[in-house]
Structure formats: structure tokens, C-alpha cells
């Protein structure tokens, strides 16, 4: 079963990677941003399984994005792997520190405290005129192990990079979900007391999940910064966090794949909305969200689940 989905995932990954050059350019760049954001959503799914919904995940997203941007602006560092490694490390550290406070909170208080933290970063960034305040500043194009692609190739390389990170994270996270610690997310929501009396430190467990989610958000931010080639304080604003939660609900906490599909669907929806309803695209988005919640309460991910169940039923009936 686990093996099956891994094989399946690898196939999809290779297929998409191979198709990329044949896809229209606008779609590739749209997918690049969508998948970068999907990493943040993946982190939110980890937290949501444990009943935690941060309204300030943009904090780590912005930390990742600004680390990359600052490195390309003030240091000679250009290699994409170095940039992302550092960004990941910094956002991981941020999440680790923030975790000491956040891990003690649940429900709405958790949401509000994380919101407060991200808004403080936002305030600081807006105040830093050296970094262009709200205008933000540009991100230099990275090199890939010394190779500096141009034009279309640059776009494709970035897409493949993002795709690779998504594949890697998807694999690791689904393995994590199958581990003991990963399996404890739902129990945290059901009964923290029982966990404590089984010998688990719930706050440490949540701290771990926060660090994982924060690091994913940081990598997402770093990749987003590279594909937008611009960063600004809005990346830390609460509406950005809200957007990620939006996509998480759209995707549903059901499966890892949901994060990526959900994020792609969301970006496409938005792009269509902008295109056909420039003046009233929010109505479009809002309605889309409502319909998802009403008719796909478990999110887009639940579609896979249904398919899987159907497949199982068929295989059962096939072998009586």
C-alpha cells in the first residue's frame, strides 16, 4: 500500500517533469509558484491533523523568502542549493525558537499568538527602509551548481527544482505520517491526557510538528522568492497566512498529494478569476471556497480517498 503510493508518486513526478518543456510558459511559472506554496500547505496539513491552525505561518514563509533575497543582494552566494539550505536552516531555527512559546497553546490562542508573531515581523520589515520597506526588493537569479540558465531554460530549471523539493518533501512527510510520532497527530486532538499517560510529551510533539511545518514554509518561501524574483513585507502579512489556510481547507488534511493538487487548483482558480472577473474575482474565490466546504467537506484530497476506496472495492469484488 505505502509502496504503491510511493511508486505512483514517483511516476507522476517523472511524468510532470518530462512534460514541463511542452507546457505553455505561463502555466509552468504558475505551477512553480503554486508548488512552492504547496510546501507551506503541506506543513499546515501536518499541524491541522493535530488540530492546530496557525494564522501566522507567513512568518516562516517570509523568513525563508527574505533569507534568499538578502543573500543574493548582499553576498556573492548564488547557488540555488546553498541559498535554499540556508533559508531552510534559518526558518527551522525561527520555528524552533517560536515553538517554545507556541507549543503551549491550542485552538484559537495558538492561532492568534502565531498571528501576532508574524505581524511583528511584518512591522519590522515595513520599518526597514534599507530593505525598501513595503516596496521590497528584487532577487537575483540563482545558479545551478555553477550553471546559469537564461530565459525559458531558467524557468524550467526553477520548475524542476521546485518539483524536486515537492517530491522529496512529499516522500518524507508521508513517511513521517507512518512513523510513531507522525501517527500521534490525531491522538493529540482526541486526548492529550492519554498521550501523556502513555509517556509522550505532547508539547514536545507539537514543537516537533511546528519545526517541520515551519521549515517547509521556509523552503516554500525561498522557492517562491526565487520564482517571483521579488520579496516584500506582504509575505509576512496575516492575509498571506490566511491564504495558506484557505488552500489547506481547499485541499483537506486527508493526504499529502492533496497539498499539491489543492495549491495548483487554487492558483488556477485565481488566475481564471483575475482573467474573467477583474472587478469581482473575490466573489469567485469566496464562492469556490464555500462550495468546496459544502460539497467536498474533506477537501479535494477526499476525492483521492474516494477513488482509492472504489479501487479497493473493485479489487475485492474482482477476487471473490
Amino acid at each position: 500500500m505505502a509502496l504503491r503510493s510511493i511508486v505512483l508518486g514517483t511516476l507522476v513526478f517523472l511524468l510532470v517533469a518530462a512534460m514541463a518543456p511542452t507546457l505553455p510558459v505561463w502555466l509552468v511559472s504558475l505551477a512553480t509558484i503554486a508548488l512552492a506554496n504547496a510546501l507551506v500547505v503541506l506543513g499546515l496539513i501536518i499541524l491541522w491533523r493535530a488540530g492546530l491552525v496557525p494564522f501566522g505561518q507567513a512568518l516562516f514563509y517570509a523568513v525563508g523568502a527574505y533569507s534568499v533575497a538578502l543573500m543574493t543582494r548582499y553576498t556573492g552566494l548564488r547557488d540555488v542549493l546553498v541559498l535554499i539550505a540556508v533559508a531552510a536552516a534559518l526558518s527551522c531555527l525561527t520555528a524552533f525558537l517560536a515553538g517554545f512559546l507556541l507549543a503551549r497553546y491550542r485552538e484559537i490562542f495558538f492561532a492568534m499568538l502565531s498571528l501576532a508573531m508574524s505581524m511583528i515581523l511584518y512591522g519590522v520589515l515595513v520599518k526597514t527602509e534599507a530593505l525598501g520597506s513595503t516596496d521590497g526588493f528584487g532577487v537575483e537569479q540563482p545558479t545551478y551548481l555553477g550553471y546559469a540558465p537564461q530565459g525559458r531554460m531558467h524557468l524550467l530549471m526553477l520548475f524542476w527544482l521546485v518539483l524536486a523539493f515537492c517530491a522529496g518533501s512529499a516522500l518524507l512527510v508521508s513517511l513521517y505520517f507512518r512513523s510513531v510520532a507522525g501517527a500521534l497527530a490525531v491522538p493529540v486532538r482526541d486526548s492529550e491526557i492519554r498521550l501523556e499517560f502513555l509517556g509522550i510529551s505532547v508539547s514536545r510533539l507539537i514543537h516537533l510538528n511546528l519545526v517541520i511545518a515551519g521549515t517547509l514554509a521556509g523552503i516554500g518561501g525561498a522557492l517562491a522568492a526565487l520564482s517571483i524574483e521579488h520579496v516584500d513585507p506582504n509575505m509576512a502579512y496575516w492575509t498571506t497566512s490566511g491564504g495558506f489556510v484557505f488552500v489547506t481547507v481547499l485541499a483537506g488534511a486527508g493526504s499529502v498529494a492533496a497539498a499539491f493538487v489543492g495549491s495548483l487548483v487554487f492558483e488556477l482558480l485565481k488566475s481564471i478569476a483575475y482573467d474573467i472577473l477583474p472587478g469581482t474575482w473575490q466573489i469567485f474565490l469566496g464562492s469556490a471556497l464555500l462550495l468546496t466546504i459544502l460539497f467536498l467537506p474533506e477537501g479535494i484530497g477526499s476525492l483521492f480517498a474516494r477513488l482509492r476506496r472504489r479501487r479497493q472495492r473493485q479489487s475485492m469484488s474482482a477476487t471473490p
Partner: protein
Amino acid sequence: MSAILLVRDLEKTFGSLVAVHDINVAVPPLQTVGIIGANGAGKTTFVNMITGHLRPSKGAILFEGRDITGRPSREITRLGIARSFQVPQVFASLTVFENMCIATAIAHAAGGLLAQAVTPLHSPDTVTEAEAALELFRIASYRQALAATLPQGVRKLLDIAMAVAGAPRVLLLDEPTSGISIEEKFELMDVVMAALKNRRITVLFVEHDMDIVERYADRVLAFYDGAVIADGAPIATLENPRIQELISGPKLNVAAAGSRHA
């Protein structure tokens, strides 16, 4: 022989209110102790302090000679003292099997959280052990049922089974038969006690039904107003009229009457 659990001058106060005081108990290994007393007599407070849910205001708790006073419950659990709950604490949105797997997997996963983050949940031996535990507690038939949907008796059994998964030496049962119809009570206790004997576990159980106590306890601790007013063999203690009306008042007779007819 030396006590596996030793409680010295234990006291718990909430502000000005004294919940329990001057508790001195020594429990030898493999004994089964029934704890009785009217509501608010301090039974659960006592259990909560031993299992680390409450920090004693005064006194000491020794487990296998080691002082565990005021340690957090997860440490105490790791040391070998487990507990079940009056309101069963199971993972409602998971199946019985998953509940059991998680309990056993945690018991197995050595090292810290990071180690647990890389050990798979469904390793062969955790699964077999979980299956075994479900058999032992006679709830294997509910294997795939969601914990939320279980009848009270089964939920209680699952709660206890999960507590036992960590192979504790001492187990505290907080009102294992509360909310269970009189007919089922004995059934349930038979299963539980058989299982615990099989695992060679020292048991302390809080109970209101004196027949249960009489049937399963080797020894009775009677709580009244935060203190232990009697500590001895079941029959002797329970027959004592003063104890009877101090502890249980009319409740005993009703319950007893009910069960005698049964």
C-alpha cells in the same frame, strides 16, 4: 518483603481546602488493592498524585524504592506506573486497532521523539502485540470499530488495555466499572483481573460497588474526608458498620441488593 509502592505522609491542599492528608500506604508486589470512599473523599486525588497528574503538597511517593514525588506523569508512566480513567481516555476518531497499535508502538519506541519520528508505526511486532492485547482483553471483535462508537464497557476495556501496553508493574484503575450496568460489571472485572494477573501487575482500583471490591480486592483502603480511615482485608473492613455508613451510606445497600438479586 519490600513494598513496590510506598506512600509517606502524603498531603494535597487546594488553597485553603485540604483534599487529602497523612496518607501512609505500603503496597507489596502483585497485591490488588481496592480503594473505597464517598465522592470527594480524596480517592481520585490520591490516584492523581501517584500517577503524577497532581503534584503533592507534602509527603513522598516511592516506587520500587525510587522517589517519584511530583514527577510528570509521562516520566512516571515510563518508570512503570500506568493508569486508566473514570472517563476512558481513548482516541475517539481512530479504530480500536489503531488505538492499541499506538499504545504498543509508543511503549516499544525507545529513545526520544526524534527516534519515534523515524520508527514506523506498524512494525510487525507492534501489530502482533496489539492483536494479542485485544485478544487478552476480549475486544478483538471490535478491532475495526471507531473508538467513538464503542459501548461504555468496551471503551473501558480499551482504556485499560492501552494503559497496560507499556508493561507497567503497577496499574491504577479509576472506577473501572462506573457507568456500567450491574450485569456487565463482573464480566468486565473478570476479564480485566484475569489479564492483569496474567501480566503480573500490582493493581490499585477505585470502586464504589462493594461487591466488586469484596470479590477482587486482597485489601481495602477506605477514604473518608481526605484521610485513610481503614486499611485491611476486604471482609473485615466492609462488614465494619461504621465504615459502611461513613463510606457508602445507602448506596452500598442498593447496589448490593441489586447484585444479590442478579
